[in-house]
Each structure stands twice: as C-alpha cells, then as structure tokens.
C-alpha cells in the first residue's frame, strides 16, 4: 500500500517536472501555432461575416451559406476583433 502511494507520488512528481520542462521549452511554440490558426480563422470570419461588425465584404448569400460553420466561433471572434489593444499586447 505504502509502496503504491510512494510510486504514485513519484509519478506525480515526474509529471510535474515534465510539465515544467514543456512550459519552458514547448509551450510558446504550441501557443504560437494556436494563435496562427486562430488568426487565420478570425480573418476568414472577417471576410465572410464582416457584416456583423458593420463591414460589408461578401454578398450576404454566401455569408448565409457559411453561417452554420462559423456560428460556434462568432462570440470569441467578435470579442477578439473589438477588444482594445495596445503595444503591451504584443508581448502576450
């Protein structure tokens, strides 16, 4: 019982060390990949659903055809597009 508990503790410690190492070495890369994908998606939504922000770019017919695919992201997209930004954002 005690042996199993100590093995569990060791495993948890190793997992923590692994996570810290990942945080130092790879987390930035993963975040950047996510950011790139997110930016591309948001750009796509902008050119298709620009109407929602008052920017008429694509004829509404095509926007309506694409709408079902875009719906899940509209709220985060609008927030990101309209969020106040400044130079210190570039650090994030």
């Amino acid at each position, binding site marked *: 019982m005690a042996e199993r508990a100590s093995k569990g503790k060791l495993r948890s410690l190793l*997992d*923590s060390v692994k*996570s*810290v*190492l*990942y*945080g*130092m*070495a*790879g*987390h*930035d*890369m993963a*975040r*950047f*990949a*996510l*950011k*790139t*994908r*997110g*930016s591309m998606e*948001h750009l796509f939504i902008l050119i298709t659903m620009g109407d929602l922000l008052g920017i008429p770019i694509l004829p509404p017919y095509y926007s309506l055809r694409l709408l079902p695919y875009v719906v899940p992201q509209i709220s*985060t*997209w609008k*927030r*990101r597009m309209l969020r*106040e930004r*400044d*130079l*210190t*954002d*570039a*650090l*994030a």
Partner: protein
Amino acid sequence: MNAILTLVLAGVAIGLGYGVYAKSIDRKIIQPDNSRTTPARMYMDGVDFTPANRNVLFGYQFKSIAALGPIVGPIVAVRYGWLPALLWILLGTFFIGWVQDYSSIIVGVREEGQTFGALSYRLISPRARGILLVFIYCYLWLIMGAFGKIVGYDLMSKPSVPLGVILVILLGLLAGQMTYKWKQDIILTTVVTVVGAFIGIWLGTLQGVQNLFSGINTALGDPGYKIFWSVVTLVICYFGAVLPIWRWAQPINYVAFWIVFLGILGGVIGLIVWHPSYPAEFPAFTNWDGDICAATTCPEGVTLGALGPLWPILFVTIACGAISGWHSLVSSSGTARQLEREGDALFVGGGAMFLEMFLAVLSLLAAVVGAGSLAQYAEWGGKAGVFSNGLAVFLSHIGVPESFGRPYGAVFLTLMALTIMYLVVRFMRVASAEFLGDRIPVIRNIHVGSLIALILSGILIWTGFWTRIWVLFGGSNQLMASLALLIITLWLASKGKNYWWSFIPFIFMFLTTIAALARTGYKSFEAVDFADVSGAIGNIIAGVLAVVLIICAFILAVDGIRAIIRVTRKEEAGAPAGK
C-alpha cells in the same frame, strides 16, 4: 563560508519568502478564489486567452522572465564585494520581486486580462498610457544597447564562439523545418539539433577554426573586429525580426533553451560536487564605489572603472534576479490570460521569481568562487566573460574540460541575449509603426521599421559606454517595476485592500532608480568631449535617455499618486471605489 551555504541561505529565503510572507499576503489580502472564473476560462478563444496547467505556466513564466539580466547583473555588482550583491538579491526578491510579479498576474486576472497599458489609462490617467509606451520604447532600446554590446564586443569576438553560435542558428532553422514542414517527431528533432549544437560548439574550439576567426579579428583590428561582430549580431536580429516567428525566432529559441538549460543544470551539479569555500582573495566588501581596481591590482590594459555609490547604483545594476519591470509586462499580458485558477497565481508568479533569484545567486557564485580572486575577475573582463569562465570551472568538476566549457558558456550567454534581442527588435518595429505609422506610412513596412530599430541599436552599441548603458538599462527596468508597483498599489487602494506592502517597495524603487538615472545622466553629460566624436554621441544619447526616462517617470508618479489620493478619499467618504 562555503558556497553551498549560500545555496542553503537562498533556500531559506525561498522558504520564508514564499512559504510565509507571500502565502500570508496571498491568503489575507488577495484572497484568491478558485471558484471565480479567470479570463482564461471566461474568454477562452484558443488564441489570447487559453487556460494552462499551473506547472506548464510556471515553466513558461520562468523562461519568459529569466534572460541575461539575472546573470550579468550580479556579475557586475560583485565589484562592491559579494555580500552587498547577495543581500540585495535575497532581500530584493523577498520584499519586492515576488510582490510585483505575483500582483501583476492577480491584477491582470481580476481586471479581465487587461494589459498594463490599458490599466494605466483607466487607473492613473489617459496620458499615462502614451507615456508608458514612450518609456517602454526607451527601455527596449537600452536592452539592445546593453545586450548588443555584450554579444558583439565581448562574446562573439572570442575566436572560439562564432562558429558555435552560427551552427546553433542553422540547427534552429533545421528544427523549424523538421517540425513544421517535414512534420517530424519533436523528440527526434530535439535529439538531432541539440546534439548537433553541442558538436558545433566543440568544433568551434578546434585550433584551426580559432585561427581562422583570430585571423579575421587581426585583419580588422581593434575596434574594427568588435564593430564587425556587433554588425553580425544585428544582422541576426534583423532576420529574427522580419522572418516569420516559426521560421526563425521560435525554433532557434527552442534549441537554445536546451543549451541553456543543460548548462544551468550542469553548473549547479558541478558546484555541489565541488562545494568550494569563498576565496579570501575575493572580499565580502570592496569599497563604496565598486572600484575593483582600487581594491586589487588590475592586469595591464584592464580598465573597469568605478560603478558609483553603492546606493543607488547597486540596486539598478542587479535588476532581474531581485526585481525587474519586464516581469510585470510578461505577467500581465501573457501569464494572466492563461491562468486556470486564481490560486495558481502565487505558485506561477511568486515561484518563478524565487527560482530566478536562485539563478542570480548561482551567477554570483560563478563570479566569486569561479574566479577565485578579484585579480582573476578583473582579468576575465568583469562582465559576461566572468560567467562563461566561472561556468567552465563549475562544469570541470563533473568532467567537462574547461577548453570546451569556456566557449560553451560564451555560446550559452550569446544565445540567451540573442533570443531576447530579435524579439525586442520586432517589438520596437511594432512600436515605431504605432507611434509614427499614421504620419510616415513607410515606417509600417517591416524592413524599414526593423532597420530603424537596428540603426538606433547600432548607434548605442558603437558609441555608448557599457557600464553607463547597463545602469540606464537597469534603471529603466527598475522604474518600470516601480510603475508596475504603483499600478498595483492603485488597484489595491481602489478595492479597499491594504496596499502598504506594495506602496513602500514602490517608494523605495522609485527614489532609488530616479537617483541612479539622474546620476548616470549627469555623468554622461559631464563626460561629453567633442574631441572624441563617437564617445560624445554615446554620452549625449545616454544623458538624453536618462532625462526622458526621469521626466516620464515623474509624470506617471504624480498622476499615480493623485489617483491614489482620489481613490482613498472616495473610499473614506463611503463612495464605491474602483472605477
């Protein structure tokens, strides 16, 4: 005293600082609530706001805050003797460093992930944001000057270093290609590129290679070869600033991380295996001016000069490692938007700061026990060279030959500096486009913006006097920290919480850094001699930068203190404080 005892002392400082002081502030004043939704969860968009595991975030925070600062600062500051430097590292982190890092995260989390720019606009005054941005631009310029001079003049100019650095960069590019284009396994990529990097560093130590670079240096003469290597450094930064991040900055940083991480790990193990005593030839205290050549006989041709009075100069010479304004920017803009639970803030912000303190102590030991005497310290140049040589001494105790350890230490430091420098150029480019892009549209072009940043950096590198640039860099960094503490104080006051634990550090840091900047500005203007045009330009730039930073800081402080008075009066009158 044994060096291991210093590590134990650092451990005790962590135990008391983190385990007692920080936890009591966290529990009694901030009162984190894990059930409260953080911005990372509330606004999760998979882009800016993404919750991350606390261990992952701890690693991210530490890597983001620990650059060349905690290494070079203590090395320069030991010119006062090792005791003042050690005390400032321990006490600075204990009372101020973690306060700023942790509170910046908390303020960011409680204020919906707003950056310090937005917070200063809302909490201090509308003009505060603009002034803060001017301030940040000067700060970034000084980073380029301070780091660029170390890399170009001290590190890359060593014949055993350039090949290692160039090969690490090429292997970083290979890592990017393998990861993003060839979709190779990350472990395979890591093994191939990191092993290759170590082979590259070893190749740089071969006599034939060293002869080649020595030949180049001899042909260019002094200071021609230093200018040449600083231009090479700026060219590397140019590519880092204009190429996509996945192509250049990120994979090179990834390979560089392993070089640095293994170096620190090896250094700690080597120090523990060696466990030396403090050398009698390296006194605990030298003199109040940090004039090492007055305390020992400096080798011929070595002119280290006095640093200046212990107060305020020591407190800006060691910035990162005790307290640094850079951390507040990272904490509020990056970490606060990824925090999964409020209760993780202390572990991530405070914990990473205490770990950085440990790195600063290690660096101090590399200078003191690694060098072994003041004379040796002076012979190693009193700057980055001291760390690379000290690290080589540590590594030699685990079987790594010093002939490899020295260039390894130098490549380690070069990479640490470069990974920050090209991001700084990128940031300066964005800043100049923001400031002047509407009036001069060509500045928005990435090449033009980057070239402007590089030319400004080059002027500072080629004309500036390094010790003054370092003090200005430290001063601007500490001023940023004191302004972060001001914003934190203001936020605490607006919430009706006890704010003295951040207000007193603000007063201390503000007065100290203003004094340091004023002194450095005065010394720079005093040293202007038009017979030496280059030196005169460097001194004028340094003096003007000091004056600009002081003016900006005063405006922000006056606005900030007015805001604190306004908020506390409102609260006393019973009106709801806050907005």
